């Protein structure tokens, strides 16, 4: 790791005032330390936000759930309110990484972690996302890479929390030197076509200071499924969150987001549309699952993902009918 200056910020304001030049925010540090050790970047200053008070709350208000950016994955997975009402979010937090990492990793850091593509993570590969000429995954080892929107760069977005949060229609509050703004997660993440060097629109002097999940409609349930390669801890080869609003066994509205599918959390719009107004059963779930893969452009080694996604999308939908 390079030598750096260290700022232990006590307030959001103090942190923001230090975020100039080659400074970078440190929350849990799980992703950042890995990048520093690999020499992917050499910041001049680390601004530690871990000790800022008040950024680690989980609260439910009139307009929904508010999650502080320093809430750890472990806490999200154990929180009673989250488990009961926003089940898929607790499930995603509890299935990510390992117990030790869930104790360290924060919600804000999880949304902002950089891609895990093995070419991106290695200093020797100067890929497009690092300002180079090519995406090495496109004709390289691409079994874990994207099956949608993978023409320029085939990373998959690494955040497990982004999958349910986007399905719930969450927003992030970004606070910077010019004040605060609120952005829907849907517009927060950027595709390679929009900007290949970044995964989201946060500015260098901004912090995520809150994550807001809107109040759920009545009779809305959510379910998250992650499929890894091993039974024990693993990154997902495919994950999905389905949020369904129902009346009896009829689906009024569906929100379905896929993880590990594309460079951004991927909304399965056709699958959502196909479910609206239908009775939830094996047949409608199967049809929605099939539609969720329509338009996929798998690479040489990841066609298997289509069958995996179809299976977990179908199961996530059917779980709501049975719960």
């Amino acid at each position, binding site marked *: 790791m*390079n030598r*750096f200056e260290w700022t*232990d910020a006590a307030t959001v304001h103090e942190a923001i005032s230090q975020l100039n030049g080659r400074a970078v925010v440190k929350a849990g*540090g*799980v992703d950042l330390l890995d990048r520093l*050790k690999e020499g992917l970047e050499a910041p001049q200053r680390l601004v530690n936000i871990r000790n800022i008070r008040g950024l680690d709350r989980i609260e439910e208000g009139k307009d929904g759930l508010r999650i502080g950016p320093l809430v750890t994955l472990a806490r999200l997975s154990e929180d009673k309110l989250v488990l009961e009402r926003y089940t898929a979010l607790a499930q995603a937090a509890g299935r990510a990484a390992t*117990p030790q*990492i869930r104790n360290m990793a924060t919600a804000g850091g999880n949304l902002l972690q950089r891609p895990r593509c093995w070419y991106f993570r290695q200093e020797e590969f100067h890929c497009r996302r690092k300002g180079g000429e090519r995406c090495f995954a496109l004709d390289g080892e691409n079994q874990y890479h994207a099956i949608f929107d993978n023409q320029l760069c085939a990373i998959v977005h690494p955040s497990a929390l982004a999958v349910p949060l986007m399905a719930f229609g969450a927003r992030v509050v970004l606070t910077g030197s010019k004040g605060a703004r609120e952005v829907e997660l849907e517009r927060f993440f950027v595709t390679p076509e929009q900007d290949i060097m970044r995964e989201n629109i946060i500015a260098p002097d901004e912090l995520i200071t809150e994550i807001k999940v809107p109040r759920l409609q009545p009779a809305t349930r959510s379910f998250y499924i992650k499929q890894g390669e091993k039974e024990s801890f693993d990154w997902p080869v495919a994950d999905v969150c389905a949020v369904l609003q129902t009346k009896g066994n009829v689906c009024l509205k569906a929100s379905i987001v896929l993880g590990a599918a594309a460079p951004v959390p991927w909304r399965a719009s056709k699958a959502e549309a196909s479910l609206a107004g239908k009775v939830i059963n094996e047949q409608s779930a199967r049809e929605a699952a099939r539609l969720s893969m329509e338009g996929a452009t798998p690479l040489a080694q990841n066609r298997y993902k289509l069958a995996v996604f179809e299976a977990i999308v179908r199961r996530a939908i059917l779980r709501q009918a049975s719960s």
Partner: protein
Amino acid sequence: MTEGIRQKAHIEFRLNDEAVEVAFAPHKTLLEVLREDLNLTGTKHGCELGECGTCTVLVDGRAVLSCLVLGLDVEGREVTTVEGMAEEGRLHPLQDTFADLGAAQCGYCTPGFLLVAKELLEANPQPSREEIKEALAGNLCRCTGYIKIYEAVELAAARMRGEEARPAKEIIYGYE
């Protein structure tokens, strides 16, 4: 508070129930500070990537990976390493059962397993086999095949609950 690039960081924290002060190069991980600056080599250096769990220590009672924590990060906190598990010259019940049941072979993974198991048993004195597996999922062992480790955690849990538990014969002598 901002500090410029310094040759040495200087922090105070509690380590295994004692107050310590230590100076180290500011970019060092907690793993390096423990092993190199405090000479506590019980905490092992494995993958350095967060994948093997052998570098696990407890910070404020929660298991974390010392290879992904900066030394600077534990200022004012309470750190427990495997060296702090024995009390008044007596091994922790988990250390006893790991030794008795062959849950440690080469032993490289053992400190990490012991600390995660300690965190588990403090929160949940009677975990099921499934809960034990889940809690230990972030620790790799190349030697034991894990079964002995689960059995050692179960036996220690029973003893810590005050039960007079002995290992089943087949755990020691093998299954028919």
